[in-house]
């Protein structure tokens, strides 16, 4: 059994040729294409050299972007890969454009000048078509390694949306918190049953073995963690697939004890961001990984993928630091076979050069950690 297998979390910044096509981006495309040994590179370069690119060729460019990202992770040596979400807008808007019963109302600030386009549920949602299937079929046809498909979870889609439908049923309640909770429960369960589960079923029927459900919103309302677990279980009910729950930049203590009721196999969390950069496996330096004790206490059967690569800095973690973080995580958890080497989150905010070095460090560090146990 391989100890500390490696996996990515989801996103990667856009392939060079999905940006404005200039001499520089073409050179970048050539460089990465050769480094990653991407197939049929000449055809891509031929498209990029044209004065006008047709709609059909744009679709081909997105396929190439997906292929580049798959080879990116494979070339770095990861055991489980995805295509860096090259074909998605972002994690909220992308699913919602495939759903009837919602309307986009405009943009809202997240912080400073960062914003997102926010939608309201105005009816019970209906899936227009499974929105990750084509993406998966393409990745499956190209990937040489195991594939894991990341999804935005039902709870987060509910939490990040306005509710103009479900809440109407409870406006006459005196207790506003009860009203909101009941409406949220119905909304999130509806999304789980009518949107997320059909998507998962379509993927599993097409051969998917692993999925990752992203629930970044879960601990923002700690009193709703049990609801997220209920909704998660509803999303995967009756489906035979390995499920990872990804949560990041949150107070993970709020997940416990409820997470033990989730019918999942693995939890992926961000830890490197809150850790020190010093080498060693002591409590003093590995301050980002105390949460592993909670897993040992409440849900020791779960695999845990603690982030050992910080995705919000250009600092390249030395393999020795990756090793020490993994060793410490294993010590805290108590079962080395349950620890997966992973990034904190998607790599969308890093350049490809930085991301590639980080991923190579992830793999080297994981192998160094494994050697200590051999």
């Amino acid at each position, binding site marked *: 059994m391989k100890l500390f297998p490696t996996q990515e979390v989801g996103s990667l910044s856009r392939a060079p040729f999905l940006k404005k096509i200039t001499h520089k981006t073409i050179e970048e495309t050539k460089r990465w294409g050769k480094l990653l040994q991407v197939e049929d590179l000449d055809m891509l370069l031929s498209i990029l050299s044209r004065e006008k690119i047709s709609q059909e060729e744009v679709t081909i460019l997105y396929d190439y972007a997906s292929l580049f990202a798959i080879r990116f992770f494979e070339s770095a040596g990861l055991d489980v890969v995805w295509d860096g979400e090259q074909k998605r807008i972002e994690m909220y808007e992308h699913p919602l454009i495939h759903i009837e019963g919602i309307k986009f*109302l*405009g*943009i*809202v*600030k*997240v*912080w*400073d*000048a960062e*914003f*997102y386009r*926010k939608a*309201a549920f105005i009816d019970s949602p209906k899936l227009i078509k499974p929105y990750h299937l084509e993406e998966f079929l393409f990745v499956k046809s190209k990937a040489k390694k195991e594939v894991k498909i990341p999804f935005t979870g039902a709870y987060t889609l509910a*939490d*990040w949306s*306005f*509710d*103009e439908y479900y*809440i*109407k049923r409870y*406006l*006459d309640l*005196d*207790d*506003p*918190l009860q009203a*909101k909770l009941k409406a949220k429960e119905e909304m999130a369960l509806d999304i789980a049953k009518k949107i997320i589960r059909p998507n998962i079923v379509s993927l599993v029927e097409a051969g998917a073995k692993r999925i990752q459900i992203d629930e970044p*919103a879960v601990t*923002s*309302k700690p009193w709703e963690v049990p609801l997220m677990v209920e909704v998660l279980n509803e999303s995967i009910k009756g489906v035979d697939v390995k499920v990872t729950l990804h949560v990041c930049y949150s107070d993970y203590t709020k997940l416990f004890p409820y997470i033990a009721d989730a019918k999942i196999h693995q939890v992926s969390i961000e830890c490197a961001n809150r850790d020190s950069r010093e080498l060693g496996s002591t409590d003093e330096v590995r301050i980002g990984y105390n949460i592993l004790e909670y897993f040992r206490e409440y849900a020791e059967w779960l695999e845990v993928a603690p982030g050992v690569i910080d995705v919000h800095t250009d600092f390249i973690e030395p393999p020795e630091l990756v090793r020490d973080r993994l060793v410490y995580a294993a010590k805290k958890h108590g079962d080395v076979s349950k620890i997966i080497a992973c990034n904190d989150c998607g790599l969308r905010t890093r350049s490809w050069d930085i991301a590639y070095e980080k991923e190579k460090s992830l793999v080297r560090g994981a192998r160094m950690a494994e050697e200590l146990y051999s």
Partner: protein
Amino acid sequence: MTEVYGLLVGAYSRNEYLIKSFREYFKNKLERDELKKRIIEEAKKIVELQSRAGLRYIIDGMLEWHDLLRPIAENLLGVEVNGLARWFDNNAFYKKPIITGEIHRKNSILSGYVYPDLVTMGRWKLILPDPYTFISLSENRSKLKLDDLLFHYSEALNNELLELQIKHRIGQVQLSAPSLVWRKLEKDILDTVGHAIAEMLKGVAAEKMIHLYFGDGLNALPAVLDYDLDVVGFDLTYTNLKILADYDIDKVALGIVDGRNSLLEDVEMVAKKIDRYIDEREPEIIYITPSCELEFLPIDIANEKVKLISRIVKRVGGES
């Protein structure tokens, strides 16, 4: 006879044009003066909207406040601005102030952030974080204790307020106090905060309001009723109005219009709830407000919510 008015209680929504202007500015593609011009243009529209809606006091939109704490954190000595942290239970973030030493006010804190001249004299409403909210949302890297920090902050902000009121006639000062109700605090802390607030608002001539939001207002009652304040505001998406009616509050702000959901409330349904409250308590003044800042709504929805407040005020029988 209860008087009924409308009010806003926090930063207004930025439209797409303004958000993109900030992005351009951050990327050095837009000059500071041009950004300022655009902010003022949008602020004027927000002021005009509130005037037309007949709101009693008027905010200037707070469009340059990236978050409630930022202007203060950036301009107080002893405080630095650090990384992102979640803004209560929202999909929104603020930059966490880091307290590195004694907090002092050296120069004006808010000049450059406020536009009182856009508002008719005497109707400008200024909103600030209460001492506990600011300090508890900061990271304390100094060796100072909570009590000291609360009073240092209050003293610094009191200086700011006294200086501001010399230059401008402030109609209302609101302390935004989500941290007082997000979790139930010990009575000792609530009492200390009351003293700090008295220090902060000492000598302030404007009407003094506190707004308790993102939590159950009952968490801070009855302690807050003893504070030296004129108006107490509640977030009725968290606070049960029927239970709130057990308390005698002369001037109350009812945040009954959901500032975080796009659904436009039914005027009649809302009005009936307020009618019942008036029948039971007969307060001197009721302010009808959103539950929180309107910055969590797209601007078109925020505008509709302001008009909705005006309709509720008219229906309940107040002035508008």
